[in-house]
């Protein structure tokens, strides 16, 4: 209590303006006066009496100090004094301060951004109860994550290691709100989905396993909080009413809590409906019944105490039994557990690898920044030798000076770190609001949390302290007398390499590595852009819809699709129009199907020749897409349900099945034995990603039944995209106003396919740019410093008739040597870092001469730019004025 009381008083004294000094002064005056009076009374002469009184009270200055220390908080007072001093010092050298702060902003900012994304996507588990016990069930083959509903039921019911197992799929359905149909994205989820996750509804209730009584038995819908707020204005009375999904009524039973966005980190659904009601919205009944139809993701919660290994052994035992029981459909079934949230490892693997590699890169940027920081602090300490010597000479302890320098370093690092984090949060805020793919509900929410702030603080203060203290050794060794007498002694150009030189060399090497990374990314991007696509997207508009949203069954959709193609071709300015069921290189492309040789009777998947992408097209699609026909004929309007089943295949397909023999006129079989005749061969294309190896693909006539409701009208025209969109929407209103149409240009669709390459290029380009800026500051600082320090020597050299080359050598020889050495090291490191770069860029090849040439050229350019000003300064030294100054 006493101590608290006292602390409180001290804090009050410390913060408030203090009257204690005045009081002490007055008290001491009174004390001396009374003592003097007593002395006089004892017989002293007045002057002597006062002198004695003053002597007696003791050293007043020391007492005042002591009084102050009792009064306030001396530690903070010292700190405050150091901070004030440091601020004054920093203001006096704005160049140094700005360089140091900017260096830290770059280093800390880059790391805060990258770590935030890593934190949000990889380190942070799903926002549900006990997320660590949740696992997605995939197949052993990587990126093969889809499961069939019957397999899911068997896994769910027969396992002994999971406390719950749910299945779900994403879907897009037309939700009718007011008078308009809106394409909205949501989940088809098994009845136990919410219960397994232990999520509680914000309003109403969720659906449960007990609501399911077979196909189409639970026409319920749960809305997401955001969807409820934006589309239904948070109206709680919405619960109990019905909304129309693809023209079928569903009862709204509840609203999900605002912080629950499903079980995929990127994909934020608008609603959840029971999986058993998928057929109600137009899905084929096969969707739930067929063991060979793989459409679902399985998410399970382990029982407490069960390891992932035990659980996967358990599931694999079930898989083996199913393979024996259902050899046709399940003969290759197996199971593997992966962390959920990023579409299993389909996105998880590349995203984790990409982020890890970028994290390494940004750590390198930070390291380069620290090296830079270390060398500018060292330079500063060297420049201040004389000042420090004076302070030592007048009695400052080395510890005190160190304390002051430390304060300076911490101030700089905190300023840099805070600014860097501020920039980082602004960037992350933009990233979180960014919707990269149009209406697709993709969110990359990576707002910085406490962990990120802690990291940023740690990094900035840590690097500031560590590298700000590098010159401490220098201070410790300062001989005050020597420093004041001789000033600074000139160091030989290529003598012993100092700490500073090593730092600069390391920094340049790191920068070279990062610059190589940028060039590799640019090359990868360029390669992606040059890849032949197998179609000509320029000038093509795509209008997508799902005819099921208008209530059409699969059998009813061909006439509508045919009408769309025909009417679109009539629009003035349109040169070709066709319909395909899936858009190549779009996010939900593609599906594939097993292909068997003619005459096969055993349709187990081990007997297939290969799996080929399957597309259904209308006549005229290839012309509209700009895909060249290599042999045979296009699908024609005569290919119908009563004529022989035909297919157009691509060159890879033809080659895989028939080698170099002509494929046209040959046959192949699909699962179950339906025979197809090949009538044409088209050029190869890119279907899922720009970087994929050539894939086999086959195209069936939409009229021959291989047809879903998915419809993409492909229109080639010279009209501006806006006019084209308006014309297509008008046309569609004429055909059926209930069908929502999404109109995009094909190049826009391709943005998605280009996204990984763009993201990689962007990230690496930014890292490279940061590195380049650091390299410039580093070399500039070094060269400027070396010229500055040796102005006198250079002047004498000029006076003695040194040539320009000699002068240059003396002035900036060392930074240039370091630049070359560092770049060489960086090049070697770059070649060894191929593996790292491969995580980011497809087929990264740092040995590419264009990459190496570009990187070397860049570094040379940076070196030249950074040392030009110091070099000019060296050349413009006027020896006569310099010598006169002395």
């Amino acid at each position, binding site marked *: 209590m*006493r101590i608290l*009381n*006292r602390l409180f*008083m*001290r804090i009050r004294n410390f913060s408030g303006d203090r009257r*204690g000094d005045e*009081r*002490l002064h*007055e*008290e*001491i005056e*009174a*004390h001396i*006066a*009374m*003592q003097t*009076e007593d*002395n006089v009374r*004892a*017989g*002293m*002469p007045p002057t*002597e009496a006062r*002198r*004695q009184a003053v*002597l*007696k*009270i*003791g*050293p*007043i200055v020391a*007492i005042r100090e*002591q*009084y102050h*220390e*009792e*009064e306030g908080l001396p530690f903070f007072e010292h700190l405050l004094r150091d901070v004030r001093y440091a601020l004054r010092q920093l203001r006096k050298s704005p160049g140094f301060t700005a360089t140091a702060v900017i260096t830290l902003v770059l280093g800390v900012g880059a790391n805060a951004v990258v770590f935030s994304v890593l934190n949000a996507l990889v380190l942070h588990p799903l926002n549900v109860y006990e997320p660590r016990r949740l696992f997605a069930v995939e197949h052993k083959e990587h990126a093969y994550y889809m499961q069939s509903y019957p397999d899911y039921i068997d896994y769910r019911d027969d396992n002994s290691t999971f406390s719950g197992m749910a299945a779900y799929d994403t879907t897009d359905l037309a939700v009718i709100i007011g008078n308009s149909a809106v394409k909205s994205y949501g989940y088809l989820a098994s009845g136990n989905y919410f219960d397994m996750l232990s999520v509680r509804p914000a309003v109403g209730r969720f659906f449960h396993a007990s609501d399911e009584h077979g196909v189409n038995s639970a026409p319920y819908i749960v809305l997401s909080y955001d969807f409820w707020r934006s589309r239904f204005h948070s109206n709680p009375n919405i619960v109990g009413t019905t909304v129309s999904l693809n023209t079928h009524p569903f009862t709204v039973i509840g609203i999900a809590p605002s912080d629950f966005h499903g079980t995929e980190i990127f994909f934020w659904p608008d609603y959840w409906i029971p999986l058993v009601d998928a057929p109600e919205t137009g899905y084929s009944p096969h969707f739930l019944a067929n063991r060979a139809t793989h459409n679902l993701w399985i998410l399970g919660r382990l029982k407490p105490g069960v390891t992932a290994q035990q659980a996967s052994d358990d599931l694999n035992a079930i898989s083996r039994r199913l393979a024996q029981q259902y050899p046709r459909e399940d003969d290759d079934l197996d199971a593997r557990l992966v962390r959920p949230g990023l579409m299993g490892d389909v996105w998880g693997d590349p995203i984790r690898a990409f982020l890890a590699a970028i994290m390494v890169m940004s750590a390198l940027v930070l390291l380069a920044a620290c090296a830079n920081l270390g060398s500018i602090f060292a330079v500063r300490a060297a420049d201040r030798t004389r000042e420090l010597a004076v302070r030592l000479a007048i009695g400052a302890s080395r510890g005190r000076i160190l304390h002051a320098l430390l304060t300076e370093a911490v101030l700089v690092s905190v300023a840099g770190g805070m600014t860097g984090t501020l920039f980082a949060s602004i960037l992350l805020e933009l990233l979180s609001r960014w919707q990269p793919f149009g209406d697709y509900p993709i969110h990359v929410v990576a707002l910085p949390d406490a962990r990120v702030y802690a990291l940023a603080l740690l990094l900035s203060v840590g690097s500031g302290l560590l590298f700000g203290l590098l010159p401490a050794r220098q201070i410790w060794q300062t001989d005050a007398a020597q420093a004041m007498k001789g000033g600074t002694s000139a160091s030989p150009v290529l003598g012993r390499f100092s700490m500073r030189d090593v730092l600069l060399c390391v920094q340049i090497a790191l920068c070279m590595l990062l610059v190589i990374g940028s060039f590799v990314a640019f090359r990868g991007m360029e390669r992606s852009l040059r890849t032949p696509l197998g179609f000509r997207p320029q000038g093509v508009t795509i209008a997508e819809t799902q005819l099921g949203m208008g209530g059409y069954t699969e059998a009813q959709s061909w006439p509508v699709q045919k009408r769309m193609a025909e009417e679109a071709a009539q629009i003035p300015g349109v040169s070709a129009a066709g319909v395909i069921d899936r858009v190549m290189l779009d996010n939900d492309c593609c599906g594939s199907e097993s292909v068997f040789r003619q005459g096969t009777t055993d349709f187990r998947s081990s007997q297939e020749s290969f799996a080929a992408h399957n597309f259904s097209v209308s006549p005229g699609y290839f012309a509209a897409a700009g895909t060249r026909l290599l042999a045979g004929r296009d699908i024609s309007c005569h290919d119908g349900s009563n004529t022989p089943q035909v297919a157009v295949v691509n060159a890879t397909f033809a080659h895989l099945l028939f080698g170099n023999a002509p494929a046209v006129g040959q046959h192949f079989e699909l699962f179950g034995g339906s025979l197809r005749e090949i009538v044409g061969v088209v050029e190869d294309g890119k279907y899922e990603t720009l970087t994929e190896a050539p894939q086999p693909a086959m195209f069936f006539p939409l009229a021959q039944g291989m047809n879903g409701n998915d419809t993409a009208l492909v229109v080639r025209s010279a009209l501006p995209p806006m006019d084209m969109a308006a014309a297509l929407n008008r046309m569609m209103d004429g055909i059926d106003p209930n069908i929502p149409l999404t109109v995009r240009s094909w190049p826009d669709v391709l943005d998605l396919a280009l996204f990984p390459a763009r993201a990689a290029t962007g990230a690496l380009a930014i890292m490279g740019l940061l590195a380049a800026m650091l390299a410039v500051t580093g070399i500039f600082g070094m060269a400027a410093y070396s010229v500055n320090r040796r102005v006198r020597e250079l002047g004498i050299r000029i006076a003695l008739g040194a040539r320009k080359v000699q002068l240059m050598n003396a002035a900036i020889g060392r930074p240039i040597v370091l630049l070359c050495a560092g770049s060489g090291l960086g090049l070697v490191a770059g070649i060894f870092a191929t593996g790292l770069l491969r995580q980011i860029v497809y087929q990264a090849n740092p040995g590419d001469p264009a990459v190496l040439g570009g990187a070397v050229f860049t570094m040379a350019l940076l070196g030249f730019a950074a040392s030009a000003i110091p070099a000019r300064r060296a050349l413009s030294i006027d020896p006569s004025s310099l010598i006169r100054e002395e």
Partner: protein
Amino acid sequence: MEMWHASVGSQNVRTVVPNSMKPKKDVQPGTLALMVLKTLDVLGPLHGYGIARRIEQISGDKLFVNQGTLYPVLLRLEQEGAVESDWAPSENNRRARFYRLTRAGHKLLDAEKRDWDQTSAIIARFFEVKAEDLA
């Protein structure tokens, strides 16, 4: 304090210096506060100079203290709530700051006194002990 007593007796300043060189006891840390408390306890409200003079008289010349060091101690006791202070006219009508023991100060004095008695009793026993007592 010795200086002052010396100067009371003689007006020759030079005698002061050698006198002050005589071995004197320095005040042990913390004891000055105890003396201040006890002084205020016995004599009631006093100003700084008064406290200094009393301590000098009571300790009977054996202590060496710069009178000024009293003020940081007083400030500290005040911050701890053991004393209170106010400006008031002194006996010869000079403005002086008077210090007065608070209730907390009384308690503190009691506690400190007990501590001190205990410590000195223990120390005293150590000095009384003879080798044969421990055998």
